[in-house]
């Protein structure tokens, strides 16, 4: 396993400054992304998965502060760059699509205006050339009737079509990394499966590195060969998706998998996770899951728990599996 590392995040900590206090959304996250892989970031609300996605795509909101950590992309620490230098990466090397595709577009401009504008600005091509490329992009995301789509305003398209258009926009600059934050959560299931299939196809065609952020373990299973699990801002488990789903090591991951009702078999009572997410303004020093965990010992609450490798590519932050307390 000597895959080339494309993106290396280490000890990343991100805080949001809000009027309600400082929210420690991402804490001490380290993650290595290989070129061409498809990696899922799985977590529930408040896990910090979306914040991590925004950080990687260099589009954190203004009230977010990178407190600590580095993000090395092809040898360059992106957090050390000046804002104009960062612009060269944002949306060009690293692109992002969102749960609500409407956020990609300004409602006052047509899909075509968006695409042509980006293409002309990025590649310096002529108007005709840009239009030709835009049509080609729409064809690649399997939108038929490209001329009509180019002239359409965002609100004139259905959710599924708009997400396809958003993908076309995200790919217009030939990025190397595509971050998809819950890209199908707002869509119907039959549309969802179309979009997931499309993302998979495009990943191959464009040679993308895909980071898929989702709460849906089924999507992780279908799309990604590797998965990381986040809880309350911490990255608690990492490994091949199949192994995580079949043999989860962290108690949280195990509980989460058992809590999902499935269509494939009849189930008795579902297992669930008692208690609530810790207050992210004042997260516990030790394992964030300790207070809801049936296996918790007094060591879990003490100091911060490091992730340890249990097998090649498989890491977990839990003292049950030998993580240092």
């Amino acid at each position, binding site marked *: 396993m000597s895959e080339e590392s494309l993106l290396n995040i280490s000890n990343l900590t991100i805080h*949001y400054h*809000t*009027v*309600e206090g400082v*929210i420690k*959304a991402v804490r001490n996250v380290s993650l290595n992304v290989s070129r061409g892989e498809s990696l899922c970031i799985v977590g529930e*609300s*408040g896990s910090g998965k979306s914040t991590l996605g925004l950080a990687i795509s260099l589009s954190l*909101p203004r*009230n977010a502060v990178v407190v600590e950590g580095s993000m090395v992309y092809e040898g360059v620490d992106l957090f050390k760059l000046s804002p104009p230098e960062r612009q060269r990466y944002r949306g060009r090397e690293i692109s992002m699509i969102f749960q609500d595709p409407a956020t990609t577009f300004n409602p006052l401009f047509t899909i075509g205006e968006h695409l042509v504008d980006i293409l002309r600005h990025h590649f310096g091509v002529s108007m005709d050339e840009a239009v030709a490329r835009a049509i080609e992009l729409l064809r690649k995301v399997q939108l038929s009737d490209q001329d009509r789509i180019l002239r359409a305003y965002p609100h004139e398209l259905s959710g599924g079509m708009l997400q396809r258009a958003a993908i076309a926009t995200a790919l217009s600059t030939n990025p190397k990394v595509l971050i998809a934050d819950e890209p199908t959560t707002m869509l119907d299931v039959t549309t969802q499966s179309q979009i997931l299939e499309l993302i998979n196809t495009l990943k191959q065609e464009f040679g993308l590195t895909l980071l898929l952020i989702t709460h849906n373990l089924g999507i992780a299973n279908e799309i990604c060969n590797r998965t990381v699990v986040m809880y309350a801002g911490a990255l608690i488990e990492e490994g091949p998706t199949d192994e995580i789903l079949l043999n989860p090591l962290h108690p949280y991951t195990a509980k989460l998998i058992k809590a999902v009702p499935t269509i494939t078999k009849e189930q008795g009572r579902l297992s669930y996770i008692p208690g609530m997410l810790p207050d*992210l*303004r004042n997260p516990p020093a030790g394992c964030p899951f300790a207070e809801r965990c049936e296996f918790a010992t007094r060591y879990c609450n003490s100091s911060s728990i490091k992730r340890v490798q249990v097998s090649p590519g498989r890491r977990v932050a839990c003292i049950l599996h030998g993580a240092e307390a």
Partner: protein
Amino acid sequence: MSEFRLYFNLIRGSPIYLIGLLLVSSFVIIGILAPYILTKPADAWGLTYDISRRFQPPSPEHPFGTDEYGRDVFNRVLLGTRFSLMIGVGVVALSLAIGIPVGLVAGYVGGKAGTALMRVTDMFLAFPPLLLAIALAATFGRGLLNTVLALSLSWWPWYSRLAYIQVNSVKSLPYVDAAKVVGVSELEIMFRHVLPNSLTPIITQATLDIGSAILEASALSFLGVGVPPPTPEWGLLVSSGWGTISRAWWISLFPGLSIVITVLGFNLLGDAIKELMDPRLRNLLSVRRV
């Protein structure tokens, strides 16, 4: 409750908003305490007449000087704060008392009755409010109560519009459906579920309008259709010094400044509250909930 603390934190963070809050709160405090902190109550109430002291410029004895009857302008302005507060609160309260029920019924009941109510509202809205107030005040005659009445009658349609819009958006929220499913009567839904949830923006707007109400009341008094002398109403005080402004500028200047500062205070506070209502900031506040 926590929302108030939150507002407070935001206001505390910005010096301009803090000035607004300070100006408004000192206006309210002085307005309430005015009769008890006067140094020359008889001057303030306009009961004295001392020709030997007339037209004295500001001095330690008379910080704002004296007027054409030899009364202490400082004391008159101080007491004027109370009248301005009374008029401002009175106008807004009375306007709300008319505007909210009209908007609530028109918005919730809708149909022909609702349309009719809103047409009446629109008729009032067609007049410039100050012109309407002047006309009404002239008809009613001078007096504190008449001034409040005249201003309120020109103002309520704005609140009725605002209430109508609010009620219309609140009545389609799921908790109104949920109340219907429970079997709660329409009247109870209107008063228990729709009205309380429509009020916040209306009350906020109304509080800020106190500043404009004071300004308009002063305008009426200045034009001679508002409060009658010798009430120390600010507009009236400005007007009383108007004829002698070249000789004794202080008679008009200090009450004028009081109006400007008070209105400024309400506007600054208004900006703060508008920023708090900004949906982008709302999102920021809800980060915790995600």
